């Protein structure tokens, strides 16, 4: 069995090595695939804060992914049409600057996560699952019916947004940027998990009555976790939209919420690297199996059933031989 720290370092090295190899072998599409995996991993790291530490089975995290995407789409759309965004008396210029877009995505997702979390956390268990799923769907339909930003067709952004000091149009540079953001999120996850907040949140998942009995409010701990979680997933959404230079209501779809959970479970729930391994495997499977058959999702369904029924610790659990947190 492998020690988890060693394994984690190996995973990150391998993750970074694939696009570097692709650069050398002149396979730009592989770099794009790696970038896609890094962004999905980032979204899942966000969800892992709520799910893996807090035990919150959110089936609506696409809401935040989509919000991040639309934060990018709307700001860049106004920049490329030279028409400022008017909200009542406020006039805001669009922007093509990634840092500004990211902050907008973080703040918007955090705010919406606070509202959804506040309502959903009035309940627990299956209610929580159904309610988060429903709110995700609400934003999906809202995006479809909001015709000012493309409605069902979505918004296309012609040129990828910029980041100071980088040429984001070069695939390897954009990969490097997303990978750096992913690393930052992993550092945040690790810090949260061992912090006083993480200790309390982790206990709130396992024994909420105990947490209350020592004077802490489990629901507030979970709400804060949900907000941080939503914000990170929102940031991933902004990057994802930039990768595709396109944003549409499908970023809000319930399938995406389900897939984010699937990524985490494939890798290992509550594990630092669970989302990274899961996203890498998911993108690889999608590319490889998807190349073999149009119906590759049947195979994914079968793999998933096998994981649920026979291997609950995910890949990291299998490799380290240690059970992870129970959600």
């Amino acid at each position, binding site marked *: 069995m492998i020690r988890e720290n060693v394994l984690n370092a190996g995973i990150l090295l391998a993750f970074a090595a694939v696009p570097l190899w692709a650069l050398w072998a002149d396979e730009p599409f592989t770099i794009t695939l790696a970038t896609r995996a890094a962004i999905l991993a980032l979204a899942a790291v966000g969800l892992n804060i709520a*799910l893996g530490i807090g035990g919150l*089975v959110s*089936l609506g995290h696409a809401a935040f992914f989509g919000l991040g995407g639309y934060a990018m789409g709307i700001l860049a759309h106004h920049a490329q049409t030279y028409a400022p965004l008017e909200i009542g008396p406020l006039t805001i210029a669009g922007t093509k600057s990634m840092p500004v877009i990211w902050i907008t995505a973080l703040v918007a997702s955090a705010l919406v996560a606070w509202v959804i979390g506040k*309502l*959903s956390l*009035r*309940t*627990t*268990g*299956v*209610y929580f*699952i*159904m*309610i988060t*799923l*429903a*709110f995700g*769907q*609400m934003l999906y*339909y*809202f995006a*479809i*019916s*909001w*015709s*000012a930003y493309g409605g069902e067709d979505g918004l296309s952004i012609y040129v990828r947004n910029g980041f100071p000091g980088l040429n984001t149009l070069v695939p390897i540079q954009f990969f490097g940027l997303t990978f750096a953001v992913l690393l930052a999120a992993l550092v945040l996850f690790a810090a949260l998990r061992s912090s006083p907040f993480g200790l309390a949140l982790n206990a709130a998942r396992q024994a909420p009555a105990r947490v209350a009995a020592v004077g802490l409010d489990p629901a507030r701990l979970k709400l804060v976790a949900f907000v941080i979680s939503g914000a990170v997933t929102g940031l991933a959404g902004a990057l994802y939209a930039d990768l595709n230079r396109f944003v549409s209501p499908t970023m809000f779809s*319930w399938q995406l919420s*389900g897939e984010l*959970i*699937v990524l985490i*479970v494939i890798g290992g*729930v509550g594990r630092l690297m669970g989302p990274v391994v899961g996203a890498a495997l998911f993108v690889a499977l999608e590319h490889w199996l998807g190349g073999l058959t149009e*119906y590759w*999702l*049947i195979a*994914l*369904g*079968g793999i*998933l*059933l096998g*994981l*649920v*029924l026979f291997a*609950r610790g995910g890949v990291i659990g299998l490799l380290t031989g240690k059970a992870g947190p*129970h*959600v």
Partner: protein
Amino acid sequence: MSTILLIEQVLNGLQFGVMLFLMAAGLTLIFGVMGLINLAHGSLYMVGAFAAAAVAGVTGSFVLALAAALAAAALAGAVIEIAVIRRLYAAPHLDQVLATFALILIFSEGTRWLFGSFPLYLDIPDALSGPVTLPGGIEYPRYRLALIAIGIAVALGLWWLTARTRLGIRIRAGENDREMIAALGVDISRLYTLVFALGAALAGLAGALVGAIQSVQVGMGEPVLILAFVVIVIGGIGSIKGAFVGALLVGLTDTLGGLFLPALFRLFMAPDAATQTGAALASMAIYILMGLVLVWRPAGLFGTRAA
């Protein structure tokens, strides 16, 4: 706004509501008795619709198509209950979500593989096609009126089943105390398979009935599933009565919201902006309703436990 339009929309809301009830009733029964959250319930809706469309295509008979929908969905339900679902009753909710999500993938892609990506169409039977004139001179599609009647009939039947029959007594006993019902000598795993198949049949029936007014295609089940979840959250988990009231509330809110909200915004906004804002808000109306119910009664209107 004319009264005729309003009555039409109320009837549309009722029709939408009773079809949601068929979905929600099965879900809430399955949750109430077995404690399982079943995301694949939408797949059973789709199975019913495809079975109906396929049989109608071959035989031309709508009655046979409905029978096929009920049988196919019940069979699919029984098979997945025995093969997968029964291993999940004691499992954490996350496992239930994942396994039933996996079932959605398998059902959806399997159906696409069998029937292709193009939508199928199921024709309304001749006897029920065309409009019917209601008192007051309102013309309303006969088929939609039939859907309302069928939905109410099924609701009454379910009420009779749970309140008046031996099976219903067992189901209610199973909700309250699993050990107790096992001690009474009831074969609990057969009861569970039966309840699951019953819920599946209701979903399949809804899929077939709605399939005749919409197209039959892969992915048709999940949006309805999510609305059925909203219904259950509003009505309260495990309550058939809650599912019925919740379904009608959601159906009416959705259709009437689409009618009134744009009109409401036209009172104080420019027409095109009003239409847009109204339409966007109307698309969110049922979820806002759900949010209000959560604030007011977190366990739902007829829920007893905060599951």
